[in-house]
Structures are given as structure tokens and as C-alpha cells.
């Protein structure tokens, strides 16, 4: 399986002033959203026409369809965002200077933390209408998908092969033609892979964003997520089981009909000069490629696309590279000033927003809560590594086992873990054990699979001659782990671990608070802090919690994962 560097690992390590400006701008923007929202709220926004959620399983197919539709709506917006934002960042040096740090900050912000801001904003745009709630939910899913897609596209655009760019220029392709003929196809394998990862991660947020309480606004959009929430209220264990089953079917269909065919198909765009060892097509792609009907339809679509891509729209660009031209320092100066002014304005807005209600003491509380959550993440990651690294290596070194387990691990990673919470919660309530400890595993239920399937991929990619050398020199036991296996899989492990730990931070917002009927379980942690502030409509504390959590995640990424990944990929690859 292809292994792309995750976007969180690709960026800079040492923070600079652009990161600072980006952080201020992102937070300022979020507060701006709430401000717009508050300014226009005249009527009570609680007046949403909530359609009641039925627990009859016959409603489930419909609900599943609605949830899936939200996923694809968000995907549409993610692509639009990717194509515009990343293109602008790549083509304009000045725009890229600030847009990329902003993206880096955005991908560290806990996704469910966005909820308060988007709900307030969209409910204000569409007061009292379901439309507002729908958009808020779609926007949350969008935030779980868009950042790494945009990053992947941006990275592709900045690594376009020089000779192909020269072809495009010397044959005078118009910008539109170049975008569809060179930029997008070149970015395709990475973009598809990231899109599929985004969608896999997105199911979690689809479920989490459907039934939401922000302050006195409560809505439940028809969908699997609301179905589960309602089942929890009614203590209906059977309904929860039905929901898990329905989700299982949805993910299975998504995995078989979309994920695998698309990833295999995108191999056609892989930029390599030699034909790779042929991998059998997934069955769905075989059907599409070999059935006459689908071929005819596919051909017709392809023809329309080709027409669309080869439109000139404008004349060919006659760009001549001028090595001696330097960027104007005056315009640079103006640009820096504009950014600085905006950042200062954002800082002032943030200060104004939180200073009325918050004290330094609150910051202390938030940081302490953050430390609790961090402790959980660290312990969970250690346990996950101790369990899944040996298992993954064992599987990865056996091609037969890999073929069976790898798809299962990927499937499990896509399955929204929040559907699996209720049994845990029930057990905790039943046995009266401490939620501080026993709610913790929920954070990693869904994302531990990333560790497993990346380690499997790493072990499977272990070169055959090196395996033979290990056997030949009879390197065994601890020595084999220390000198061979661990260095060999380290880059893969880091890739999986950062996804898992990022997911754990995100999940803490739903995992540290759980309920079963009237029993509310709360663990101490930043996730619970944000969740409670959200349901109380305490926006300043949500802002504080989100900033602190982003801070933890950024520090983690910059101080631990990125150096580790850089070290691993430098040291453990030849050449």
C-alpha cells in the first residue's frame, strides 16, 4: 500500500513569526464568526423544527443515506477549497507565506472545537431553519477533510517536475489547460489517498455532528449519529446494535465501491517511468473496466471531461522566466505590514472577547486539564505501540497474513468509533468504576488501527534481500528488534502514530464525557472541558480550550513527531 507523508509531518519544525500570525488570524476568524452570529441573533434560535428521530430500525437505511449525503456534500466543498486555496498558496509566493502556516494551524485545531463557532454562525445565517443546522454539520465534516487534502495538493504543486512545466509553457498551454492537464493529474495519487483518509476519518465526525447542543440550541439532524444519540437517551441497547450494523454496511459499501477502486485507479497518475509490479484490480474496478455498459458510460464521461479540460478559456500563457528579476521589496513591505496589522487586530479582538469573562486562572485550569488529556494520550500511545508494533511486524512479514489483515485494519480505521462507546459506558455505569481511567480507552478505539496498518505496510515493504541477510547472519531476538525491525519500520510507525495521536486528541472531546440515559460520566481533561463549555454555550471557554488544545497538538507535532520522522526517514533510507 502506498505510503504518503502525512501533511502534519511535512511542515517546518521551528516556529517563526508567520506561525504566530497564523494562529492569531485563525482564532480571530473563529471569534469573528461567533460575533457575526451573535450580532444577528434576534429570534430564539432554539426554534428549529426538530423532526423526531425514530428508533425503529426500518428508518435506518434512510438515516444512513442522509449521513452519507452529508459526507459527500462536505467532500464537494473540500475539493473546491483544495483547488482554490492550495493553488493560490502555490502560485503566489506572498500568499503562500501566510496561507501555509494558517493551514498548519488549522489542522491542529480540534475539529469538534469548531462546532460552537460554526453552529452559532450558520444558525445566525439561517435563523430557525434546518438549513443552518445542516450547514453547520457539513462544515464540521469539511474541517475534518479539507486541510490535509489542501496540503497534499499544495505539496504536489510545489514539486511539479520541471521538464513537464517546460512542456506546458513551450507548447503554450493556457492556465486552465495546464491546471487540468498537468497540475491535477500530477497531484492525483496523493490527493486521492488523502481524500480517502479524510473520508475514513470523516465518518467519526458525521456521527458526532448530527446531534448537537450548543448553549440553548439543540438540534438532531436525521442520520445515524442522531439515531445513536436518541438511543442513548432512551437506554435502547438494541437500537445501538442496529446502528452499528447499519454503519458497518455503509462503511463496507464505501470501502468496496469507492475507496479501493479509486485508490487503485489513481495509480495510473503515479509519476514514474517504469511500470510497477502489477497489483490485481479490486473487484469493483474490474467490473467497471470490463463491463461494456460501464465502459460506454465511462467513455462518455471521459469525453465530456476531456472537452472541458481542453477548453482554452484564455490564450496560452507566454511566461518567460526571468532569473534576474527580484521581488519588489516595496510590495513585500506593504504585504508584511498588512499581515501584521491584521494579526494585531485579531489579537485585539481575541483579547476583547475573552477578557470580560476569563482570568489567568482559567488559562491555568485549561492547561492543567490539557496535561491530564496529554497523559492519557501518551499512555494510550505507549500501550498501542507495545501491542500493535509486534503484531504488525509479525503480520507484515507474512504476505499471506498481510493480504487478509491490511484491508480489515483499514476498514476498522474508517469505522466511527463513537458508535462503539455505548457498551463501554454501560459497563462503567454497571460496575461503578472510575470514568477518569475507564473512559480513556475510548479515545484510541478508532485510531489505533492507523498504527497497525502503517506498521504492517512498513514491515511488508522490508526489502527481501535484507530479510535474507538477517536470516543469513542469524540476527535474532533483541538484536533483531533493535538493529533491524524498529529502524526499518520507524518512518511508517511515526506516520501511523501521528494520525492516531491526533485522532485521540480530537476524540477526547466526545470520549471524556459520556452519558447513558440520565447517568453522565465525566473524566477530568481538556476534552471534557471543551465539551461542557460547548453545551453550556460558554464561547470564551470554548475558545480558550480550543487554543490550549491546538497548542498542545502543535507542540507535540513540532517537538516530537516531526523531528522523529525527519530523523527516521533520513537515517533509515539508502540514498
Amino acid at each position, binding site marked *: 500500500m502506498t505510503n504518503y507523508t502525512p501533511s502534519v509531518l511535512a511542515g517546518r519544525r521551528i516556529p517563526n513569526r508567520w506561525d504566530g500570525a497564523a494562529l492569531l488570524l485563525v482564532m480571530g476568524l473563529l471569534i469573528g464568526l461567533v460575533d457575526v452570529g451573535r450580532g444577528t441573533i434576534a429570534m430564539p434560535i432554539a426554534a428549529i423544527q426538530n423532526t423526531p428521530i425514530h428508533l425503529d430500525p426500518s428508518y435506518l437505511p434512510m438515516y444512513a443515506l442522509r449521513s452519507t449525503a452529508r459526507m459527500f456534500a462536505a467532500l464537494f466543498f473540500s475539493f473546491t477549497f483544495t483547488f482554490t486555496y492550495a493553488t493560490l498558496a502555490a502560485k503566489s509566493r506572498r500568499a503562500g507565506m501566510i496561507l501555509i502556516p494558517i493551514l498548519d494551524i488549522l489542522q491542529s485545531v480540534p475539529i469538534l472545537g469548531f462546532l460552537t463557532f460554526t453552529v452559532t454562525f450558520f444558525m445566525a445565517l439561517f435563523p430557525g431553519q434546518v438549513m443552518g443546522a445542516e450547514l453547520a454539520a457539513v462544515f464540521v465534516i469539511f474541517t475534518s477533510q479539507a486541510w490535509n487534502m489542501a496540503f497534499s495538493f499544495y505539496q504536489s504543486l510545489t514539486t511539479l517536475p520541471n*521538464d513537464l512545466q517546460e512542456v506546458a509553457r513551450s*507548447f503554450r498551454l493556457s492556465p486552465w489547460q495546464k491546471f487540468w492537464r498537468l497540475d491535477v493529474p500530477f497531484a492525483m495519487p496523493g490527493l486521492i489517498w488523502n481524500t480517502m483518509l479524510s473520508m475514513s476519518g470523516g465518518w467519526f465526525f458525521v456521527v458526532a455532528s448530527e446531534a448537537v447542543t450548543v448553549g440553548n440550541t439543540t438540534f438532531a439532524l436525521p442520520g445515524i449519529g442522531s439515531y445513536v444519540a436518541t438511543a442513548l437517551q432512551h437506554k435502547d441497547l438494541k437500537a445501538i446494535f442496529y446502528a452499528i450494523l447499519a454503519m458497518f454496511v455503509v462503511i463496507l459499501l464505501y470501502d468496496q465501491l469507492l475507496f479501493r477502486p479509486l485508490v487503485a485507479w489513481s495509480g495510473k*497518475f503515479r509519476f514514474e517511468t517504469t511500470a510497477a509490479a502489477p497489483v490485481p484490480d479490486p473487484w469493483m474496478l474490474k467490473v467497471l473496466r470490463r463491463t461494456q455498459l460501464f465502459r460506454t458510460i465511462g467513455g462518455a464521461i471521459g469525453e465530456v471531461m476531456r472537452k472541458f479540460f481542453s477548453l482554452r478559456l484564455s490564450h496560452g500563457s507566454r511566461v518567460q522566466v526571468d532569473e534576474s528579476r527580484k521581488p519588489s521589496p516595496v510590495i513585500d513591505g506593504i504585504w508584511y505590514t498588512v499581515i501584521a496589522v491584521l494579526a494585531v487586530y485579531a489579537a485585539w479582538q481575541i483579547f476583547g472577547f475573552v477578557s470580560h469573562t476569563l482570568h489567568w486562572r482559567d488559562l491555568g485550569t485549561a492547561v492543567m486539564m490539557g496535561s491530564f488529556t496529554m497523559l492519557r494520550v501518551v499512555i494510550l500511545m505507549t500501550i498501542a505501540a507495545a501491542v500493535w508494533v509486534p503484531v504488525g511486524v509479525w503480520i507484515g512479514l507474512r504476505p499471506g497474513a498481510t493480504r487478509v489483515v491490511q484491508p480489515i485494519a483499514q476498514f476498522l480505521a474508517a469505522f466511527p468509533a463513537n458508535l462503539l462507546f455505548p457498551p463501554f459506558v454501560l459497563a462503567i455505569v454497571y460496575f461503578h468504576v472510575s470514568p477518569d481511567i475507564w473512559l480513556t480507552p475510548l479515545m484510541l478505539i478508532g485510531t489505533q488501527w492507523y498504527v497497525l496498518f502503517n506498521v504492517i505496510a512498513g514491515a511488508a515493504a522490508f526489502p527481501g534481500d535484507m530479510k535474507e541477510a538477517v536470516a543469513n547472519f542469524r540476527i535474532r531476538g533483541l538484536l533483531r528488534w533493535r538493529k533491524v525491525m524498529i529502524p526499518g519500520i520507524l518512518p511508517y510507525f511515526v506516520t501511523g502514530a501521528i494520525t492516531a495521536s491526533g485522532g485521540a486528541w480530537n476524540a477526547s472531546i466526545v470520549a471524556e464525557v459520556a452519558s447513558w440515559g440520565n447517568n453522565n460520566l465525566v473524566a477530568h481533561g481538556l476534552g471534557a472541558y471543551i465539551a461542557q463549555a460547548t453545551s453550556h454555550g460558554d464561547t470564551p471557554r470554548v475558545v480558550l480550550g480550543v487554543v490550549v488544545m491546538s497548542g498542545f497538538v502543535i507542540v507535540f507535532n513540532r517537538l516530537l513527531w516531526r523531528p522523529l520522522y525527519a530523523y527516521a526517514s533520513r537515517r533509515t533510507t539508502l540514498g
Partner: protein
Amino acid sequence: MDQNFDGPLLTVRDCRQSYHKDASADLVVLEDVELTLHEGEIVGLLGRSGSGKSTLLRIVSGLLKPTAGEVMWRGKKLTGPAEGVAMVFQSFALFPWLTVQENVEIGLEAQGVKKAEREERTEEAIDLIGLGGYDTAYPKELSGGMRQRVGLARALVVHPDLLLMDEPFSALDVLTAETLRTDLIDLWLDKKLPVKSILLVTHNIEEAVLMCDRVLVFSSNPGRVAHELTVPFPRPRNRYDPAFRQMVDDIYGIMTRRVPKEVQAVPSTAPSGFATPLHPVGTNLMAGLLETLSSAPYDGRADLPALAAALQYEADELLPLGETLSLLGFAVLEEGDLILTDTGRKFAEAETEDRKEIFAEQLRAHVPLITAIRSVIDQRSNHRASAVRFRDELEDHMSPEYAEETLRTVISWGRYAELFEYDEEAQQFGLEEEDEEAG
């Protein structure tokens, strides 16, 4: 475009290309280049890598704006990629996600040619270049030779007046390259190519003499036109014709004659010799060549074209090797011959440890950069020196790529000679532990 313009197709006057380096002097890539191209001729730009010939090709194509000078295309000033100029790339530069047909069509699509005409012309070009039957194949299914045929068809389909070729055959194996060359020349002689003139960049001397009417030989650092030769032989040309061989020999002579002057100037101007760009020639390769030279049939003296043929090297690969050997005092380059020195012979006959000592001696004597690095290490109490300052100093005198390459070369040579160690993580030079204790 004025179709009736009857002057030269292209003229380049006083062309100069340089790159700015912060604060210090510009790095000059091309200087005082003049070029005139008429209809009906094939002109070759021959030179070593780094002589700026590919840069000139990009200036001519309109992709790159020269720092100074004037490029006139059919009597008008060139301000960007021009209509009527098409390029064939060394790396083929095909879009891997497009089929052969779609790749060939792309230039026509950019011109907005209607579909029916596009398909007709594409078919024509594909058949002309011998790609019939491959229309629906993807580039990765094709061999190198077939890929370059696609590159050619893509350029020809737009019916360019001028065909630019950037080392088009150098990524191909010898036999494939030869087939493509002959096919192209046959089409040219039969007037089947829809082009009026060809400008060919190459580092292969035989290729230049075989294909071109005129050859401009470039010298390096900065790139200049050192010689202009007219190839008088009628076509089809026979590369075993003694006159042909003589011309190849002469060009080898020209290319080696100019270079040793610069190299010999190094020891006399020691401080600036610090910044001589070094070729990344491995020590095993050097040892192998020295052994070959010292044994039969060469016995210490080899004719470069013959040596290149025997080792299956191209001039571009052999010349840096020869230059490096002469820089280190192992051999001398003279009029297209490579002659072993006494030190070179001693090295060839020595055992591993002795070789390292001889090599270290020659490095200290002839490579000021190594001497400088070692003396800085010795001065420091911790016996470590950062590589960054040396890289910075090198970059004042050469492009960052050459600076990096030079530094890499020095590191590899210094390690072989056991003059110093290098810590990649810390980017620091240091001493081996035993040396450190002794010092």
C-alpha cells in the same frame, strides 16, 4: 508572424546569462554568445555539462529571458515561448497519465485546433515517426526509444519552423540512440520533416559530427562559444571514414586543450583555487582508470576517443575523469591524449593502505579546499569544523548546486584519504579518534 521574412530564422546577439548571488558577484553561465540560424540547416551546440548550452536552448525557445542580449525570432524580438518553435526533451517529458495520442495532441489543443483536424494531424505525425499502433498506449508501457519517438511526434505535430532538441538521445542506450538518429536524418534528407531548421544540444562528439551542418563548441565557466566548425561531409555520413574520425579527434583536442589551462592555474593562485568546482568522481573509478591506463594496451598513454570507445564512455563522462586525474597530478591531458604521471603509476601499483597515503599527499598538494578544512580542524581545540562556512564560501564563487557537489566530493575524497571524518547529522568535519588523541 511574418511568413515572408527572408532573413535568418533566429539570431542571438551578445547574450549573457547570470544568476544573482546575494551581495557577492554574479555567477555567469553564458557570456558573449552569438548565434545565427538559417533555414535548412542542422546546428549542434556541443559542450560539457555546465557549459550553458541547455541554458542557451531555453533562451532560444523563449522559456528563459537572458540577463542581457537580444534574441530575434524571424526578425522580431522574442518575448516568450514562440509559435513555430517546438522542443524535444532529454527526459522525454511525457505526461504519464495521457496516452500516446493525447500526448502528441497536446500542442494542438493548446492552439485551439478543432478536433477533426487535430486527430488527422496527430495520426500523420504518429505514422511519420513510426509509432503507428501505439496510439492508445501509456508512456510507461513503452521502451525509452519509443518514448522519445512520442516526444518527437509531439514536437513535429505543431509543424514548427525550428525544432529544438535538448540532448534527445543521451538517455537511451547506444543502439536505440543510433536507430533514432538515423531515422531522424533520413526523414530530414527526404524532406519529410515539417521543420525548417534543427538546433541540437549534445555532449556526444560523434553525434554532433554525424548529424550537424555546423557545430558550436562551448567552453565552460562561463559558457562561451569556443569554436565554430562546419562539417563538410556529404550525407549519409560514415563514422568510420578516416576524415570523420579525424574531425572527432580534433574536437576532442579542442575540448581538452582549453580546459587544462584553467586547471593548471589552480596551484599558482592558491587562495582563489580554493573555489575550483570539483567533479564528483569516485575514488574507485579513479583507481580503476589509473590501473587501466598503466596496463596494456595503453602502457601509460591513451587516445581519448579510443579510450572512450573501449570503456563505453561518452566524452562528457570521460573528460571530467581525465581532468580530475590531472588536477590531482595522477595524469596529464594533452591534445586529446591522457598520459599517466609517475605518481599515477605509483598509485596504480600500490596496495590499499599505500594508495590512501599517496592519495592524501596529492590532495594536500593540489586541493586547497582540503588543506583549508584540515587546517581549520587542527586549529580548533575540539577538532571539529562546521561544513556550513565552507559551503557558504564556495557559494560565493559558484552556483549552490556546484558548491554542494564540490563539498560532497571533498568529503568523499577526504574520507578515503583518512584526512578527516564527516558527521552528516551535525554537518561537521572532525578527526578520527586515534588522530585526535595523538594531536
